[in-house]
């Protein structure tokens, strides 16, 4: 948690010697708080002040990175509620596979290759959790080797046995895995393994006290990249524990628990649907890594969509650039449609036109990333805006007709638009993008 200028001032010598280049210690403190000066500019600063300032500058939830070629990072969050700023690092989604599973390689390939496009982004799985269900070090290491041959995804290696973990780490390929997990009995051994292999380390305990004790032992052993598993027994327990961890890190700046959280959505779930629900809660409420036990495309797609939604910056809706877009190589005589530059709107409309196989011109106005109805209500998608876009993007030089199709939701602006665009015919299209193919079939 950053210190205020006054808090920093209290740590300075207060001699106003000006050697830092600022007229007073207070002025220097204010610049430090604004991150416009470096503490090293003060020749007389105490060791105690240096440590306090360094600690305050560190993020309250440590950023932890798993993987190399297909890495992902979690942590470094700064708020409890996304409207306060934004959530920064989307939770990684992993599938758990047992080292005894005969379908292991098949599942690895599925997770590795799964990708679904949504509003111009490719949504993918981030990791593979391999569990030492056999209890045998050789079987575990063998499964890890087999999986590594199929994917560059980071692994979460799950075993309580340091011997099995050691064997698996040797076959893992040095791709920054997560060692899961250190507990009361094995924390020294697991921390030593994580340190030796450049891995991050998960700690598990049923109480927050237990977790804090483990992270202190792990950091003392030199492992800084930690992940917390509070081992919740049910859905309500997970919500409470994850909320408490996030609050302790952000509001109390409690370092021993300032790490990302791992959630096992399948633990305690009686059906695949219940697991998906637990994962949805974990996305909303503070998980950094979410491990699934089943892989169903519809479930995973829904969870990835929720993750994308919750981690969208509330200050910056996803936008596309305004302009005249060509879909399916249109000719001058093909239809002209207009919509707003909210990403979801653009991709819904463009996707339907593409899917219909009809060539068309799609004029995208600058509506500050708002959807059609929102933009219309805010005066950002009215006749004037559309007419301006027609001129700015030189639509008349590309097409040989004067017909423009507007979204059905803004049918009321037809009259105004005909006034703004003299000689044009304004056609009212469907309200929903999904009805565009049927509409285009009828277009003359």
């Amino acid at each position, binding site marked *: 948690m950053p210190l205020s200028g006054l808090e920093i001032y209290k740590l300075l010598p207060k001699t106003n010697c000006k050697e830092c280049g600022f007229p007073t210690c207070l002025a220097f403190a204010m610049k430090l708080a604004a991150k416009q000066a470096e503490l090293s500019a003060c020749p007389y600063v105490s060791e105690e002040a240096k440590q306090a300032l360094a600690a305050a500058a560190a993020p309250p939830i440590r950023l932890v990175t798993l993987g190399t070629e297909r890495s992902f990072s979690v942590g470094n969050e700064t708020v409890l*509620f*996304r*409207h306060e700023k934004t959530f920064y690092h989307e939770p990684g989604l992993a599938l758990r596979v047992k080292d005894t599973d005969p379908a292991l390689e098949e599942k690895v390939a599925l997770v590795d290759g*799964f*990708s*679904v*496009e*949504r509003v111009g982004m490719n949504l993918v799985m981030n990791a593979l959790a391999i569990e030492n269900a056999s209890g045998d070090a050789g079987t575990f290491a063998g499964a890890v080797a087999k999986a590594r041959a199929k994917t560059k995804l980071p692994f979460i290696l799950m075993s309580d046995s340091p011997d099995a973990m050691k064997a698996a780490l040797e076959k893992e390929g040095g791709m920054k895995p997560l060692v899961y997990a250190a507990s009361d009995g094995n924390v020294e051994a697991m921390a030593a393994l994580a340190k030796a292999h450049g891995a991050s380390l998960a700690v598990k305990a049923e109480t*927050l*006290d237990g977790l*804090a*004790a483990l992270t*202190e032992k792990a950091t003392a052993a030199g492992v800084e990249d930690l992940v917390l598993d509070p081992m919740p027994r*049910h*859905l*309500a327990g997970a*919500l*409470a524990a994850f*909320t*408490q961890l996030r*609050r*302790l890190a952000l*509001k*109390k700046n*409690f370092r*021993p*628990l300032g790490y990302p959280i791992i959630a096992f959505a399948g633990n305690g779930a009686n059906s695949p*649907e*219940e697991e*998906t*629900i637990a994962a*949805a*809660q974990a*996305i*909303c*409420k503070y998980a950094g890594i979410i491990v699934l036990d089943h892989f*169903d*495309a*519809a*479930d*995973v*797609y*829904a*969870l990835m*969509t*929720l993750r*994308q*939604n*919750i981690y*969208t910056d*509330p200050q910056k809706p996803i936008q596309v650039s305004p302009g005249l877009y060509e879909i399916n190589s249109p000719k001058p005589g093909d239809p002209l449609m207009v919509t707003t530059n909210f990403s*979801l709107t653009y991709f*819904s409309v463009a996707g339907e036109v593409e*899917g219909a196989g009809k060539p068309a011109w799609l004029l995208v106005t600058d509506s500050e990333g708002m*959807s059609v109805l*929102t933009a219309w*209500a805010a005066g950002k998608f009215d006749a004037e805006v559309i007419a301006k876009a027609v001129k700015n993007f030189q639509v008349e030089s590309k097409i040989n007709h004067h017909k423009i199709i507007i979204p059905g939701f803004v049918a009321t602006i037809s009259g105004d638009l005909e006034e703004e665009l003299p000689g044009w015919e304004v056609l009212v299209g469907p309200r*929903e*993008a*999904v009805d565009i193919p049927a509409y285009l079939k009828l277009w003359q």
Partner: protein
Amino acid sequence: MPTTVEIPKEKWTGKVREVTLGATPSNGGTRGREVVVGGEATLPFLHFEGAIPHPPVVAVEILDRYPDDWAAPLKEVWGDVMKDPAAWARKAEELGAELIMLKLTLNESGAADGARAADVVKAVLGATTLPLIVRGPGQAEADNAMLVPVCEKAAGERIAVGLCEDKNYRTIVAAAMANNHLVIASTPIDVNLAKQLNILISDMRMPMERILMDPTTGALGYGIEYTYSVMERLRLAALSGDSMTQQPMICFVGEESWRQKESRVGQGVPAEWGDWHHRGVIWETVTAVALLEAGADIVTVRHPKTLELVQSTIQKLMAS
């Protein structure tokens, strides 16, 4: 030396108002039970911090006519009961619905038939013991033409009627007040507009204990994050003591979720979207669960499987 971690708790100064839907015979209605929502003195399901006296509830959405335009998986699963609103409501009650949400529509010629609407509401009330929510078609004139006779015909039943919007609330509020009903105040994803409409409605002397808030629902993938955040902001304001934000919240999840391409379309979509029927249910369920985590007190759903999944989730979240 063992660390002792102090559990961080917020000291909230406000709580959500309790609102009672439905009236039993002793309270002037005919319902088999009353449903109380609200009363939370903490954020959703944080039992370690404050009281949550009533669980959120799930309403099943039905229509006053056969829903030709609904997605095929819904028509398959409900079957013939959809042809009769009373039979549909009865089936929903059998499946465990806690409330019925009846959506009224315009007739074939696009007109608002108030007398018919009132008859349908009467029939549904006769077919189920559950409290009822009734929504108009969503156009000011039609809503007024239909909801006024509905309020009169259902006098004393303490149904919730809506939607009241800033441009059209007076007629509906007056009819609800005169007949001992509740109203749903609907605003477009905005804290201040929500507060303002609550103030306008209470200025008409409608008691605050008879107002539900609809923050406007965006489905998963289609604006859910806006709804989610405005609900969190409204709930934080309520718990911080802002009286005009302390109404229980209702989310029309089924309607929004099943309107989207993922739920409506089974052909010509990417294989990565998975099985259509299952996807529709999961889309609706995940939308409902995320909004419950943000503070929803009532969610309305369309699919029976969603009803089951969301209810069991609420049960688990209420176990402290």
